[in-house]
């Protein structure tokens, strides 16, 4: 174990020095560099940066474990968090790049010729980004505490200092190039253990193929896992338990939400031309797909391994990693019937084993008895994933405040230099707020991530798509649509996720039967989005026409030539 500690210090030390080195090299000298990295990022670099921006601590640490307990149902995350890029590439990125401003509220404000629309958009952007960033800072703390044996809060503070350094100094420019480095680290750290384990279990070095291969005993892995699951009383692995309509709705909400998240959209303002925006969306999805097609394989390997190693075995003779992870509380064994054997079952009365989903990725290298440096690599990868996403979100927050509120609404006469100072101060403020939430996590962090996607789907996506594809969409329609869609999403979430109107959290289970159309709060973004579209179009019919110059602007953004660079 000590060997692992040393390796972890060395690898984390090296990666952090790289991030700081990049920050010093890429200091931002203008607002354009601070907000959009000067607008000259290559499609390849932007693709990697987008992938790192997108894949958070949750994708890296939790997703494979989550899928391993959900089986087929895990597809909602796999398809939901990749399919959105098709929408982004085809419906949003090229046109927003042609529009060529700095932020998403910029587009909403100008396209709907209204500061009210801009402010509504700023509020949505802040709500989504703060929700998301709190979880990331917590993730940094958790990784630190598990691998370096420091306190979670100390871990959060170390993470804050590093992010502060390169986000405040380098702005988008610093963030972009650190994200490129972070992508390389996190994908390497994810793939190495996956490949090793795939070889061990199936003899096939490609996890995506190993998942569908035969194990060492000559039985197909998925078939065996189906059998094991059924024996223990779980649903068959390839079947899942959610209803078809709910799987449909959650997948759609996550896809559309992805395309509506401001920290992802803003990455496409950093490339030079419209064609680069299209290409970098494709590259981003390719880089994301490497992890997202490996994760379900890891899920299958880890679950099979876990059941085989511990289920029905004598507790005193379990391998060493079991007691190592018991100390962290991620694994727990309670000998209910006192026979000294580990009973793992779906029935909570009989089950004696508690497994935290995060362990599926974190403990995998130990379960598969991989060398110490691989375990350390996973720590560095987890930190890279959490830091890169946190930085991207912080930039959206600081740009919303300094550019959209201060420059565009409160004080248009501010000079470039003053705006840059304001941007840096907002970034510092945002880091502190994020750190506060990281140290004192509100109990609802996990629940609100679904809300972030629901909000992205219910607020931005319809407003942007209509803004581009429907010339005659007016401000009255768009603003009403955003407000109604967002409020409806919030209402549904508060009612069915928090039980706010029915006596609190304890009521949530009982309210399930009242879900509208049988759709869970996670999937409700789809309905809220449809409501937004409908309200927008209906209000649009009965209110004033769009001014000529705005219609001309829409025609202009539909054609790539003369894109120019991102300007004020």
């Amino acid at each position, binding site marked *: 174990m000590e060997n692992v500690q040393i390796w972890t210090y060395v690898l984390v030390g090296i990666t952090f020095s790289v991030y700081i080195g990049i920050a010093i090299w890429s200091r931002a000298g203008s607002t354009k560099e601070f907000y959009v990295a000067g607008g000259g990022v290559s499609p390849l670099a932007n693709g990697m940066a987008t992938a790192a921006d997108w894949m958070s601590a949750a994708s890296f640490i939790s997703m494979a474990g989550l*899928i391993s307990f959900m089986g*087929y149902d*895990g*597809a909602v995350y*796999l*398809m939901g968090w*990749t*399919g959105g*890029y*098709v929408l982004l*590439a*085809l*419906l949003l990125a*090229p046109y927003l790049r042609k529009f060529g401003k700095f932020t998403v509220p910029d587009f909403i404000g100008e396209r709907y010729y209204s500061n009210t629309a801009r402010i509504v958009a700023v509020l949505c952007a802040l709500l989504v980004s703060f929700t998301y960033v709190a979880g990331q800072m917590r993730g940094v703390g958790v990784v630190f505490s598990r691998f370096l044996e420091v306190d979670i809060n100390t871990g959060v503070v170390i993470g804050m200092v590093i992010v502060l350094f390169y986000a405040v100094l380098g702005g988008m420019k610093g963030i972009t190039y650190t994200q490129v480095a972070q992508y390389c680290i996190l994908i390497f750290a994810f793939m190495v253990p996956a490949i090793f384990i795939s070889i061990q279990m199936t003899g096939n070095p490609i996890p*995506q*193929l190993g*998942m*569908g*291969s*035969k194990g060492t005993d000559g039985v*197909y*892995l*998925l*078939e065996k896992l189906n059998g094991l699951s059924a024996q223990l009383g779980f649903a068959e692995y*390839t079947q899942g338990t959610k209803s*078809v309509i709910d*799987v*449909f709705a959650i*997948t*759609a909400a996550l896809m559309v939400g992805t395309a509506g998240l401001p920290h992802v959209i803003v990455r496409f303002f950093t490339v030079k*031309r*419209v*064609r680069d925006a*299209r*290409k970098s*969306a*494709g590259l981003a*999805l*390719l880089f994301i*797909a490497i992890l*997202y*097609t490996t994760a*379900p394989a890891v899920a299958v390997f880890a679950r099979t391994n876990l059941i085989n190693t511990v289920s029905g075995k004598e507790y005193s003779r379990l391998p060493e990693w079991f007691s190592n992870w018991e100390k962290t509380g991620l694994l727990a064994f309670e000998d209910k019937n006192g026979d000294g054997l580990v009973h793992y079952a779906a029935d909570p009365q009989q089950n004696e084993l508690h497994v935290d989903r995060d362990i599926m990725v974190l403990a995998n290298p130990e379960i598969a008895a991989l060398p110490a440096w691989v375990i350390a690599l996973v720590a560095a990868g987890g930190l890279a994933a959490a830091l890169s996403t946190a930085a991207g979100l912080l930039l959206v927050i600081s740009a919303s405040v300094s550019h959209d509120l201060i420059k565009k609404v409160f004080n248009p006469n501010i000079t470039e230099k003053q705006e840059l100072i304001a941007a840096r101060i907002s970034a510092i403020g945002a880091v502190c707020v994020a750190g506060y939430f990281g140290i004192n996590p509100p109990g609802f962090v996990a629940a609100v991530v679904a809300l972030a996607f629901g909000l992205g789907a219910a607020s931005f996506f319809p407003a942007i798509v209509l803004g581009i594809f429907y010339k005659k969409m007016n401000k009255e329609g768009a603003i009403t649509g955003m407000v109604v869609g967002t409020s409806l999403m919030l209402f549904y979430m508060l009612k069915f996720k928090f039980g706010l109107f029915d006596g609190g959290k304890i009521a949530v289970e009982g309210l399930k039967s009242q879900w509208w159309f049988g759709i869970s709060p996670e999937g409700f973004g789809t309905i809220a989005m449809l409501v937004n579209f409908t309200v927008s179009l209906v209000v649009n019919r009965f209110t004033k026409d769009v001014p000529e110059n705005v219609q001309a602007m829409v*025609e202009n953004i*539909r*054609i*790539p*030539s*003369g*894109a120019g660079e991102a300007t004020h």
Partner: protein
Amino acid sequence: MSTEKSQTKAAEKAARYWKTNLRYLAILLSIWFVVSYGAGILFRESLDTIEIGGFPLGFWFAQQGSIYVFVILIFVYVRWMNRLDSQYGFEED
């Protein structure tokens, strides 16, 4: 008169470009919908009766296949649009 004429001509050209773009989007998004929501969700159960290697086919589409198709769709779009841009002389730089 002649500038007016060339203006309407430019507008017509832009409209035709946009129409072709919308057709591409319709084709690509239909495929996007069919592989994910169709094969991966709505028709999953019947596809699961077919097995490819150790994979039930519907399950494979839901956890692997649709993601591969998504990547391909974007690159096809990139190719089609670059070709369309150069046909209309709308490319940048």
